[in-house]
């Protein structure tokens, strides 16, 4: 079976990419956020993953409203970032682990999930920025990826309960994988933020703390809230917590917290970073 080394979670606010591009990590506005990655870098140097299963959400790069899957599993050997339309740098490509992707798809469908499978899939800042944060300055990413996209754009969204179950199905796939890869599970996005409407700028540290405090030991508590509850508590884009919940499921039944960082604001967002060990 694959060796699941742990899980890494972080916000993926596009402006972070601008800060990295400009070298603003020590700027007073950015420092409290970037300082949260020293521990992530140490942890990755120790755990040395070679594969990453990444739960994320597309923001209108790969998917449009003509065909919008609830769950989509990338099954490609290569994934490319591209122009997202508003001035972000184009990030470097990713090598895919297509064989593991298909193995995960087999398990998901066995477990009665119905994912879309994508042999071509562009990946946006939701993937690139967490990687730029985790492995700054590398020429090529040290891990192959299996990207899993969750619809957080167009309601109805899958429930938190469904996303946790999806992650747990991915965990079963990893435990039955015959290879010896060292897998890190990644969940990106969040935490509370709202970009649209008269409530734009909304954040909710109390709900964010509830999520951070329970993600390791009691992830099922996060599934008590409906999607509507989560939007009310966390903002229209705070629903990206679904990526965290799915990733937590993929980590396995037990988890211990290694590290967390929480900072307001990064752009319009309550930004968070977390690392969990299995068991």
């Amino acid at each position: 079976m694959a060796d699941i080394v742990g899980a890494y979670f972080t916000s993926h606010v596009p402006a972070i990419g601008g800060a990295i591009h400009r070298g603003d990590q020590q700027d007073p506005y950015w420092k409290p956020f970037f300082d949260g990655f020293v521990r992530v870098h140490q942890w990755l140097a120790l755990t040395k993953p070679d594969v990453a299963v990444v739960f994320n959400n597309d923001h209108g790069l790969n998917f449009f409203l003509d065909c919008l899957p609830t769950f989509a599993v990338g099954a490609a050997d290569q994934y490319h970032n591209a122009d997202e339309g508003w001035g972000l740098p184009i990030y470097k490509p990713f090598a895919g682990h297509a064989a593991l992707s298909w193995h995960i798809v087999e398990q998901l469908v066995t477990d009665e999930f119905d994912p879309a499978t994508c042999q071509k899939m562009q990946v946006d800042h939701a993937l690139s920025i967490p990687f730029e944060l985790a492995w700054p300055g590398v020429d090529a990413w040290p891990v192959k990826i299996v990207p899993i996209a969750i619809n957080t754009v167009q309601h109805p969204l899958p429930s938190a309960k469904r996303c946790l179950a999806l992650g747990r199905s991915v965990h079963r796939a990893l435990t039955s994988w015959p290879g010896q890869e060292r897998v890190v599970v990644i969940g990106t996005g969040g935490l509370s933020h709202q970009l649209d409407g008269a409530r734009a700028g909304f954040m909710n540290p109390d709900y964010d703390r509830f999520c951070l405090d329970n993600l390791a030991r009691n992830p099922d508590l996060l599934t008590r809230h409906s999607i509507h509850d989560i939007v009310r508590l966390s903002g229209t884009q705070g629903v990206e917590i679904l990526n965290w919940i799915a990733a937590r499921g993929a980590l396995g039944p037990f988890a211990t917290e290694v590290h967390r960082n929480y900072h307001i604001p990064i752009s319009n967002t309550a930004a968070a970073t977390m690392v969990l060990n299995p068991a």
Partner: protein
Amino acid sequence: MPTRKPVQPIPGTTLFDGAAAAKGYALNAMCYAFNHAANRAAFVADEEAFCVRYGLTHDQRAAVAARDVPAMIAAGGNIYYLAKLAGIFGLGVQDVGALQTGMSVAAFKQMLLDQGKDIQGKDMAHG
């Protein structure tokens, strides 16, 4: 089986659901095209022609012409796609936030910073 229950509206918040996605399709399709630099240039060169090409409704066209983000959302625009249009106008998410809340950009940014002050001393950073 669970059934859909009526839910309380969330103040200041529009859920981008099937009805909104259907209503906003043309506007969002135009914005999705802005992933390509050539389309951004074509829009800037002849905004009216570009909007016609994508079949924007009257309300969508008026909202775009007025740079009126709340009206774009009312016409079915989704913020992820609208962000690409806002980028052409040189507007970031704080500018868009200010437009929607009626604040100045400086006041909107200060409102975001003030929420950070509220958590200081609450030991949020460490578990």
